């Protein structure tokens, strides 16, 4: 319990060790929920018109006729050797698929978080400054409205209704598909910048705006609420009053003096938000046909693709734990009063 590097290392180490049983439990629940109810997934995978031979081959190949317990232990031991099972459609290994799709999801997540910060924090400052008067109510109505809009509804309205009006493309199929050799990072914006291709950059941003906006608008409240309540704590403090008395402008007082001290909690909450955004990203990516891990999760869940579903569960759990850990560490770094424990 202190702030030395050793304390930090112990803190991180504890969290990593705790993560093992967590992951184990998640795999167990997902595995048995799937395998207990669907006796013969091969019948689903190969389709109703497949020949008995095809079904037999499928059963042979994926080993789904073995006892569930054998399959479970087999899956676990393979998992720790880096073999995350095979996708029944095409029989490709799951881990490379997930790793290829992940950058696109990260890109969407970061864009959504960016919009949440750029729009949400100023709204929170406005609301706190107006505390209890009509701008406060208006901001509250706005972010609660976003919260009350289910992700699928917002995404459908943006994708089908607003997209054509604004002339924005509403699918993840990029009009200028680049040479695969040039997809260095699998993030469309970063790739187009690395290629110095302005056309592709504009195209990438146009594709990103609506999905990111629908994720951000619906979750704006998290940033706004946090900023507002921590600003309300800071605004009555003496140093803010002093700044006002010195005759500084409202903008200077709010954004340079007060906001700085209230940002710590907002920044860290955004870290944990990234984890909960993963829930909505599944829906949003499917509606916008964004070629990311959320769409893969959606398709895997619906097509009884157990290896894919389990792979996504394991991967999402890792992402959430890392995001939470990063935001906890960030909080400690930003706030010198925090002790690692």
């Amino acid at each position, binding site marked *: 319990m202190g702030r030395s590097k050793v304390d930090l290392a112990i803190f991180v180490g504890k969290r990593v060790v705790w993560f093992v*049983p967590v992951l184990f439990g998640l795999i167990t629940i997902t595995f048995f*929920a799937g395998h207990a109810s669907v006796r013969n997934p091969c019948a689903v995978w190969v389709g109703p018109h497949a020949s008995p031979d095809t079904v037999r081959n499928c059963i042979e190949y994926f080993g789904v006729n073995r006892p569930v317990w054998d399959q479970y232990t087999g899956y676990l031991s393979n998992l720790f050797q880096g073999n995350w099972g095979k996708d029944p459609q095409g029989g490709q290994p799951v881990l490379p698929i997930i790793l290829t799709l992940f950058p696109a999801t990260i890109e969407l997540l970061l864009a959504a978080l960016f919009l949440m910060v750029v729009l949400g924090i100023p709204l929170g400052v406005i609301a706190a400054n107006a505390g209890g008067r009509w701008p406060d109510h208006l901001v509250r109505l706005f972010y609660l409205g976003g919260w009350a809009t289910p992700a699928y509804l917002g995404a*459908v309205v943006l994708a*089908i209704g607003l997209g054509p009006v604004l002339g924005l493309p509403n699918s993840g199929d990029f009009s200028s598909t680049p040479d695969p050799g040039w997809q260095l990072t699998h993030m469309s914006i970063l790739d187009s910048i690395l290629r110095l291709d302005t056309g592709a950059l504009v195209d990438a941003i146009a594709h990103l705006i609506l999905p990111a906006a629908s994720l951000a608008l619906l979750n704006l409240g998290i940033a706004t609420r946090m900023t507002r309540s921590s600003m309300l704590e800071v605004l009555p403090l003496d140093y803010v009053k002093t700044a006002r008395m010195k005759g500084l402008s409202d903008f200077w007082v709010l954004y340079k003096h007060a906001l700085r001290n209230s940002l710590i909690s907002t920044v860290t909450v955004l870290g944990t938000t990234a984890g909960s955004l*993963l*829930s909505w990203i599944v829906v949003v990516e*499917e509606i916008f046909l964004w070629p990311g891990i959320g769409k893969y999760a959606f398709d895997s869940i619906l097509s009884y693709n157990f290896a894919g579903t389990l792979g996504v569960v394991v991967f*999402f759990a890792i992402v959430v734990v890392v995001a939470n850990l990063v935001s906890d560490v960030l909080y400690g770094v930003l706030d010198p009063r925090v002790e690692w424990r």
Partner: protein
Amino acid sequence: MGETVQPSWLSGSRTRLWSAARAARGLYRVLRANPLTFVGFLMVAFIAILAFLIVAVPFVTGLFGPPVSILPHDPNELLPCAIPTECATSPSAQYWFGTDNVGRDMFSRVLAALPLDLAIGFGVAGFALLVGTGLGLVAGFWDTPGTLGGALSIAIMRITDMFLAFPSLVLALAIAASLGRGTGPALIAIMITWWPFYVRLVRGEVLAVKHLPYVAAARAAGVSGIQILFRHVFRNILEPLVVYYTMDVGTVIVTFSTISFIGIGVPPTVPEWGGMVEAYEKLLLTAPWTVLAPGAAIFLTVLAFSLLGDGLRDILDPRSRRALVQTTTAPGLASKGAAEA
């Protein structure tokens, strides 16, 4: 804050009356300070009464003769029209929300879905409230290391952490899809994933309250552990719990309708808001009322609960209450020491 609370073994009927009057005055002050909360309260009341009438009127009239519904049409009745798949008519005096592509009255369909969605919201959140509060009280109150309670507490928290380390919608989707599709599996899936939020909330509040002087006083006076837990600790964590539950009803409705939207929730014949948005998604440009009517219904319902809950949270959180109302209204608030992230 805890010092202002009288130990409950002292409280007579006079004290109880006094605190009820004080709470009512506090409520009035709060509603005056925040009109949006009041609007949310009215909306929730209206929605609840409407849902009750939709279910109760046919039931009661059915006892005396043919059941009378307050819906203008049967939600699955096909109204007369020329071409069977192009029957969508825009809203009119006869069909308030228009009709869908096969000629069903949208107004009746949207209203028919209200009791189901609302019951699921209250029910699932209520289940989570009961289970989560029970486990949270145990985990927070008997957490002395080395005792049986301590071991139990650790076990509860590990399992809770496991669920919290994962985007709940994705887990609910995976469970619902593999349990088979339908209303029941969707409900079970949400119930399995929902209670951990309450455990975390309740445990945090218990930890914040149980070392306050009035609890120590009760202990010193010889009150038993169980009595302290229910009379002294539980009563003082009720307020944040009520707030969270209010907001949560809306969140459950969103989650349930998302599962239906994805197509693994209610069967297509049962009117459900999320299922309707999915079914009419393609009509958004040609017959927008088919999407916007169920969309508006879910939006307004969730908004009502959010307005009420968010307002209550502001009121019950001592810090923002002080900043907003500048008077103390509600007695005995637990200090919000528990981090909300």
